[in-house]
């Protein structure tokens, strides 16, 4: 508690827009009401602490543009959080979240959402999640998604989408509507095919990235991937592939089993 007090006093005096409390073992913010009077703060970094929750009073810091709580023990975010009207970047990666609160999609200017390494899946997202059309980067790596809702296509400004090491059995064709996408990370899932619509995207080039390794791809995709990402894209744009994809979907084979052992993830512990 006294640890936090020192930072609060200092921030009050300096009026610095940045407040960094990193790796200080802080477990509770509500102990210190003065903390929520620091409304001049625009960046709050609480990385590597022991917070189990973010209090609803966080909204008193209404000038926040960046909120970083990576590597804490947060199980829940307050419903009020989406009323932080200036928040552009929120990083709650490496916590114990199994859901995002109702109304989370109401952030008006959120650009980067990082929830890497939590316990989220397709049922963890609130109904308005895909209203976040100001998002340019969405980090969902190291979670438990098996599917991605087709509404993903509404995130028109998305440039970066990370779905690394989930349990995905399919990618919705609506990803092909994300005209601005230039990074797609889908490595380490249970994917066998790609929807041909992904061929609409430009993910090959020095400013783009496509990561698809460690998936049980059908042989032709696996073969193309061996030679290079551009070959995968050339291939999925062919009529041959569209035909094979149609047949594959019609066959409706059961998805490959889960192979990743997630029991050691620290988001699971405690």
């Amino acid at each position, binding site marked *: 508690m006294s640890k936090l007090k020192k930072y609060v006093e200092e921030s009050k005096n300096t009026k610095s827009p*940045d407040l*960094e409390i*990193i*790796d200080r073992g802080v477990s509770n913010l509500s102990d210190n009401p003065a903390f929520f009077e620091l409304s001049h703060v625009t*960046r709050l*970094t609480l*990385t*590597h602490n022991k917070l189990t929750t973010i209090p609803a009073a966080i909204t008193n810091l209404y000038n926040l543009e*960046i909120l*970083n709580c*990576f*590597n804490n023990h947060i199980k829940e975010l307050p419903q009020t959080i989406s009323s932080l009207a200036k928040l*552009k*970047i929120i*990083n709650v*990666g490496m916590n114990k979240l199994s859901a995002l609160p109702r109304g989370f999609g109401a952030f008006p200017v959120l*650009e980067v959402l*990082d929830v*890497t*390494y939590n316990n989220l899946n397709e049922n963890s997202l609130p109904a308005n999640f895909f209203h976040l059309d100001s998002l*340019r980067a969405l*980090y969902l*790596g*190291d979670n438990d998604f098996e599917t991605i809702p087709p509404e993903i296509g509404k995130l028109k400004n998305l440039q*970066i989408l*990370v779905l*690394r*090491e989930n349990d995905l059995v399919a990618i919705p064709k609506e990803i092909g509507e994300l*005209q*601005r996408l*230039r*990074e797609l*990370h889908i*490595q*380490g899932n249970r994917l066998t095919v790609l929807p041909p619509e992904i061929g609409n995207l430009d993910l090959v080039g*020095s*400013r*783009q*990235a496509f990561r698809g*390794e*460690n998936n049980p791809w059908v042989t032709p995709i696996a073969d193309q991937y061996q030679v290079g990402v551009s070959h995968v894209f050339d291939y999925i744009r062919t009529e041959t592939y569209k035909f094979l994809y149609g047949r594959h979907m019609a066959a409706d084979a059961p998805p490959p089993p889960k192979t990743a052992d997630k029991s*050691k*993830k*620290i988001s699971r512990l405690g």
Partner: protein
Amino acid sequence: MSLTTTPRPPNPMRLQSLSERNESGLFQRRRLHANEPEGQNNTQVPDQLLAGIREMGPQPDINAGASVPGFPLTNGIGSDMSMGIGVCRRCGEGFGQHQQIVNSNGEVWHPQCFVCAQCFQPFPEGIFYEFEGRKYCEHDFHVLFAPCCGKCGEFVVGRVIKALNNSWHPDCFRCQLCAGPLADSGFVKNAGRALCRDCNAKEKARGLGKYVCHKCHSIIEEGHIKYKGEAFHPYHFNCNSCSIELNADAREVNGELYCLRCHDKMGIPICGACRRPIEERVVHALGKAWHVEHFVCAKCEKPFFGTRHYEKKGLAYCEIHYHQLFGNICFTCNSVISGDVFHAFNKAWHVNHFACSICDRKMSQKTKFFEFDLKPVCKFCYDKFPGELKKRLKKAYDEQNKK
């Protein structure tokens, strides 16, 4: 007979006159049904003829024995008429002493013989129509002689407009574009439609990609101005301020027209793209003013509509094309980097915005950092990652570098 509008170069229009019809349906019927042409004036204009017929009926109620003032026919039923009255016009029999006699225009009938020439029924309420010596009930007269209106489908009794191979009530015959009445003003046939002169001129101009002057109704060959939503020859107007005759550069401001010089002096912003005044929302950018919908990306030409744009060498770009062409938008603050750029993982940063993505602490070129989902992670933070994650990251890194 043909109507022409006042000739107006360069496109004098010839109007089709209403009376200039080929052959009317009525005229045909009349010939078909006419037993005795009797030297009638067959060239008579059909609608006039029909109007004349109508004037014969409806006849007054025969039982009333009255007559219409000014109408030469006399109809009546008399009893105890003299024996010398003659025979029934229909059956040729004489009349008994106490029999009723129908008397119409000097001819007599038994009441049961005074019936419609078509349905042989007595005339309802005594109303009949006479045509070519035969008398018809109202229903059959309509069926036999009155044409149907091409618009409303009702019988046309009285003045009929014959046009476009159809018959019309005068009030139903209207311009198919503006619905203005055509019965008295004449019409122009345009692609199978009857149009008024104005609409026809507009249609013709539209086909040529031109406007029709709202004042003089002729096609504007070059350089129109818009005034209160209509197109005009500029020379019909003078500048509201300096009175000079206007040309196509004239501008409308609050319902008044000004020449370009006077307009510019009034300080109304002119769009940098279309050179027209901006009456609504103005976008100020690149040292110019723009219509919202004319301020577009120099590459894809899509309007920004208030979304962020990026400027370079006097041109504006959308984010995606700016990034594609010049590539230096800071990943952290999402704005254009004008000074030194730090590049890593397909991304760019302001040098002072390059920081660990986990702890936000600033990093320099010399700082050692790791990659995590194509984001930079400082050594301190990487070391704090759980072992199982580090193991996975190392495996992925090794696989990547095997290639």
